[in-house]
């Protein structure tokens, strides 16, 4: 060893770190979460494939929660389209343009909050970039993770993207008004796939177009609000369809 012989040559050392690689993101997420908790804002991280109906669910949510103060940050690679739709629906909304990034991270959300009136909100919906892979890895400081899964995507999506569904407090099975046109798709099969990747599979079936199932979704949100961001309480009891 060169520190013992004194020759001055460099020495090779091993440093044990044992630290999460995304520890920095987790610190920022904890900071966001603390802000939301202090101000009583319920932050909902809404994830799902492109075209799964995330924006449509939020438009319908705005109709159902008229009188409550709703805000949204919409992650979008290139456009302001979703935020524009949400503003028309009465939600205070702005885009987080991610460029080529396939997900939001806690820092992007934190920076967006600097120029966004989030403190006055009852609910802040963070509409993540449409993607069933990358967004699952990043904590944003949300109270709950909600994953939109449309019936047209197929019954086996939970099995193909287990990490996304593992992280979900609630799965919204969307576009159920299309079921009569999809003879090969059964909600029971989706539920069974969810039970193989979520220890507490919790889902609701909704149609933003017809309004079917929306009261249950709004009641679920209200329960999250009452429990002040305690997802374990919000998504109980047990498995199967959520009973708000």
């Amino acid at each position: 060893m060169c520190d013992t012989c004194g020759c001055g040559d460099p020495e090779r050392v091993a440093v044990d770190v044992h630290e999460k690689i995304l520890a920095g993101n987790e610190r920022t997420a904890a900071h966001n979460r603390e802000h939301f908790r202090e101000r009583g804002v319920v932050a909902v991280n809404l994830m799902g494939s492109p075209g799964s109906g995330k924006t449509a669910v939020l438009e319908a949510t705005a109709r159902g929660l008229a009188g409550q103060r709703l805000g949204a940050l919409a992650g979008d690679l290139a456009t302001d389209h979703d935020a524009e739709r949400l503003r028309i629906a009465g939600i205070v909304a702005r885009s987080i343009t991610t460029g080529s990034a396939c997900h939001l991270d806690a820092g992007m959300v934190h920076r967006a909050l600097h120029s966004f009136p989030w403190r006055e909100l009852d609910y802040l919906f963070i509409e993540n970039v449409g993607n069933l892979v990358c967004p699952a890895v990043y904590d944003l400081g949300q109270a709950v993770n909600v994953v939109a899964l449309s019936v047209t995507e197929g019954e086996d999506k939970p099995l193909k993207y287990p990490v996304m569904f593992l992280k979900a407090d609630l799965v919204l099975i969307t576009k159920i008004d299309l079921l009569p046109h999809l003879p090969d798709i059964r909600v029971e099969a989706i539920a069974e796939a969810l039970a193989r990747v979520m220890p507490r599979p919790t889902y609701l079936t909704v149609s933003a177009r017809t309004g079917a199932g929306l009261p249950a979704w709004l009641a679920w949100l209200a329960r999250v609000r009452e429990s002040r961001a305690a997802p374990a309480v919000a998504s109980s009891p047990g498995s199967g369809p959520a009973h708000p």
Partner: protein
Amino acid sequence: MHEYSIVEALVDRVAAEARARHATAVHRLSVRIGELSGVDVGLLTTAFAIFRDRTICESADLEVQSVPARWECPDCGGVVGPGTMLRCVRCGAPARLAAGDEIVLDRIEMEVA
């Protein structure tokens, strides 16, 4: 492909450690990646090979230990097989992920003057 952002966070963390210890080079990084972490080991390795250029990790090897998912019963400790219903067959409790969600930097081998 979020593996690039993972590598970016990894290299930043290693660079901070190297600076603090006045390291002149980094030879090897050991990381642990869980099967249900959402990180693809092949993509991570590719991203690292590209991203390490012109960083302190330029000549570093990335050693990846893959961790299989392990579900167990939080009440009785029974193992719950992956791909099955995630409930304990003995007591019915929802399973807990005991291993397999790691995205961890374990060790850095570096050269100090």
